[in-house]
């Protein structure tokens, strides 16, 4: 292409294109978005792979994530340290998995991580309660929350251990007709 950009080397852009669902243009645009979150922290020149991480508070204020009740969990799931500090790699990764082109299996893996609040590789009743409260802004009564959690576990738990393992979750998501259309963010 004609335009010479100096943010990434060609090799880096190729790597990004192979490892994510974005094109070169979109990756450059993503870099622009990442940069405008913290212009003084994020360098314009990424050829040397600087080790810059943006804190959780900056990322969840992005318009795409602002209204999402699970924004904190989403950012935490994609960060290396689990606290929500995203490097540019993690940033691109996050939006790649949440883009429309990502396959169902990949999205199911990350959806499981997002809904697993206590990070024990199971979605137990407490995780479900937290999910439900975030989903309804805590306007259901405790009784209703309890009923819903019990019913969900009863529906999806296949191996009878009263919590959802990844296999249960994936099996349930595989038959969900709306999962792909709801679990994506456009950027």
């Amino acid at each position, binding site marked *: 292409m004609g335009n010479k950009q100096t943010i990434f080397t060609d090799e880096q852009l190729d790597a990004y294109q192979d490892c994510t669902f974005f094109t070169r243009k979109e990756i450059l645009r993503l870099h622009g978005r990442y940069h405008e979150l913290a212009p003084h922290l994020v360098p314009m020149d990424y050829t040397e792979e600087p080790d810059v991480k943006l804190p959780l508070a900056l990322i969840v204020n992005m318009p795409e994530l602002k209204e999402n009740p699970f924004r904190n969990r989403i950012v935490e799931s994609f960060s290396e340290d689990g606290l929500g500090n995203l490097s540019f790699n993690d940033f691109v990764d996050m939006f790649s998995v949440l883009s429309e082109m990502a396959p169902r299996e990949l999205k199911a893996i990350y959806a499981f991580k997002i809904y697993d609040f206590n990070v024990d*590789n199971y979605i137990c009743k407490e995780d479900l309660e937290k999910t439900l409260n975030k989903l309804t802004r805590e306007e259901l009564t405790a009784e209703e929350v309890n009923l*819903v959690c019990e019913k969900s576990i009863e529906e999806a738990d296949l191996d009878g251990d*009263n919590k959802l393992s990844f*296999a249960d979750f994936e099996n349930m998501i595989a038959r969900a007709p709306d999962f792909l259309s709801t679990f994506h963010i456009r950027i």
Partner: protein
Amino acid sequence: MATRGSGNFMRLVSDDSNASTLTEDFGNHQEELPSTLPGEQEQLPSTLPGEQEQLPSALPGEQEQLPSTLPGEQEQLPSALSGEQEQLPSTLPGEQEQLPSTLPGEQEQLPSALPGCHRGLEEELYFSRKWDPNLPLKNLPLSMQEKRKTREQRQQSRHIIDCCESWRRSQQHMRKRLREQVARVIWGLQPWSKTMHKIEGKFGVGVKSYFTFLRYLIYLNLLHCLFIGGLALAPALLFRDKNKPSGLTANESRGALDLLLGTGFVEHSPVFYGFYTPVSIPHGGLCLNTPLLFLAGMAAVLMLSAVMELRRTVIGYKHTWLLGNRYNLHMCYKVFCGWDFCIQDPNSARLKHRLIRNDIRLELQEESFHQRVSQRTFRQRLQLYFLRGILNFLVLTLLAGSFSLIYFATHISNKEKEGWILPLLYEYLPSISITVVNVLLPHLFRRIAAFEDYSLTWQVNITLVRSIFLKLATLGMFLLFLHQKDLTFVKTNQPPEPPAKLNSSKNCWENEFGKEMYKLVVFDFLAGGLNAVLLEYPRKLLVEKYPSCSLVKAIGKQSFLIPFHVLDLVYSQTVTWVGLFYSPLLVHISVIKLLLVFYIKKFVLFHCCVPAQRSFRGSQSSVLFHFTLLLGLLIAVVTLSFNVTMRTSSQDCGPFVNYSSIFNMTSSCVGTLPSPVQRTIHYFTSEAFALPLILAEIVVLTSFVSQGRANRKAIERLKEMLIMCSADKRYLVKKHSAWLRTLKSSVSAGTCEDARPTALKDPSGFQPLLLRSVSTP
């Protein structure tokens, strides 16, 4: 047996006394297990008595599988245990062939997934897919750094392979990228995608599914236009006899009225059947003539629609209904797939929260409703059935009333020549009555269903079913009455019109039929437009100007009632299909009409409607809508075949004037083909072929049904097996960690190194089976 068992125990202990990760991982299981495994103190939950001595020999083979309680590998366990079927009779006999097969190298991969590691889950799944070079990098659930490392590894391994192979791979890679880009571009080119996205954001997925259905119908009709244009219209226009008089006289045309009534210049245009005359195409032989092409075009259109509709219905059915309500996961879907991650506007977010809340509350209400139903007394049930009987009778009387209304309208409507309003009213009487009936009755049905004490989804479904039946039955009845009217007309011996008037309405019943369908389509469109302008918009203005008036509050702004709008679309498409043969340009008119309907509905939606309080299960109902479309197609085909076979085509209009019936024309064409082909065609159309065909279909259907039943049973058994295997696993884990603990405590207490299990006792009270058999004299 005992020594063998104890030998195995020794091996068990010595192998794993150092495996600290295992106990650490299952440390948190220890507290849980006693509480979750009430009755499993003494034996595997699934073992039958009498085979317990086999158990210890089973254990060593399972060491590698115990860590597979970590997520992602639970499906491996049943097969890992498959080698021990004889020892653990937890599986029902004869089911081993149904267990999934493991990937070979997985048992040794003990991932170091610590609960605190955020990438741990991905690593296990990554391990299971590590060596699949075909899985694209994008689909790997790893962090970016690891993906880039894998990429470098793959590229390096590519250097090692010879250059031909690497060239081929890079070509494959480029082709894949190109295909993805092209698909992306084409997908983005779909019309109105931005509008649909906006609609989805503001009003939800259900409303968007209506507009998707509308767009699908537009595509379908465009496809039909191509066929009709190419096979019926073009030959008629190209090869028509220019010398024939067009039959149009000056005092017949009435301007705009003609457009509405289908008379005058419209009658003699390609819109109606009478325009198409039988012309032999030069150099085409006996077979290639316009009637055959006409017939071929119609048949192609109907078959294409049938195939497309069937495909859509079947795909939707497979996805949503096949597993039935036994596996319904509605609550899970609401919780995990409820939130639309695309929402950016705070108002939409608030709305979505409210929708989800209402949905969940409704779902809970349905649960409690089901419980209430199961607790009904006999007397209550009797009362309820009596009430339902009365209400159904009421529905039937309403239907009968509407049919008689249409009957009178059909028979009263005659042709007046003077004036402007009166002829319009008379001609449109059947259409008006059908539309009135179709608009009023569904709302009545909705109110009636509210009294019948069904659960909410069932109320919606039954209203839908009744409305579908109403729309299709009124159309069917109308066609029947038309047919009757024509018959009585023919019998009353009207004097024939002067022969100079070609294609006159009296002698061409096909044109009449086509005109009725044309009028139906036109009126349907007019009604929709007038409804938007005269009802919806003023309602919105009223609500906005006088918000405090109580009457206005009672009416409120409308919400977009998806099922009724979709049924309107289905009805109009059915009318198009029925009238297609007698008014070939009806599909073109229909395309224009659908386009206008899209914009009108969009206007009504954005300016006059509020978002519904309850979300609509779009995916389930789309199957219902496509199925209804299929039913409409069936009606069209039945009517057409009836008309074609039972009624003789009129002698002075249309492409089939020279033949007494359409089949005569096809048979004369078939007669020109070589004799073996003729014989085969005769065989295919005879009864000798139909009967074996029907028998073969019955056999195939039976085999599919029985296979479906067997699969359902297998699903149940596999589910039970899964639960039992998981319970087995927990039991084994518990036992294993108990052994380790007692071993450690015995070692630390300085007791002898003899790890024979004679003195071991599990704190939760269970005793190893082996011991019991050993210790009993």
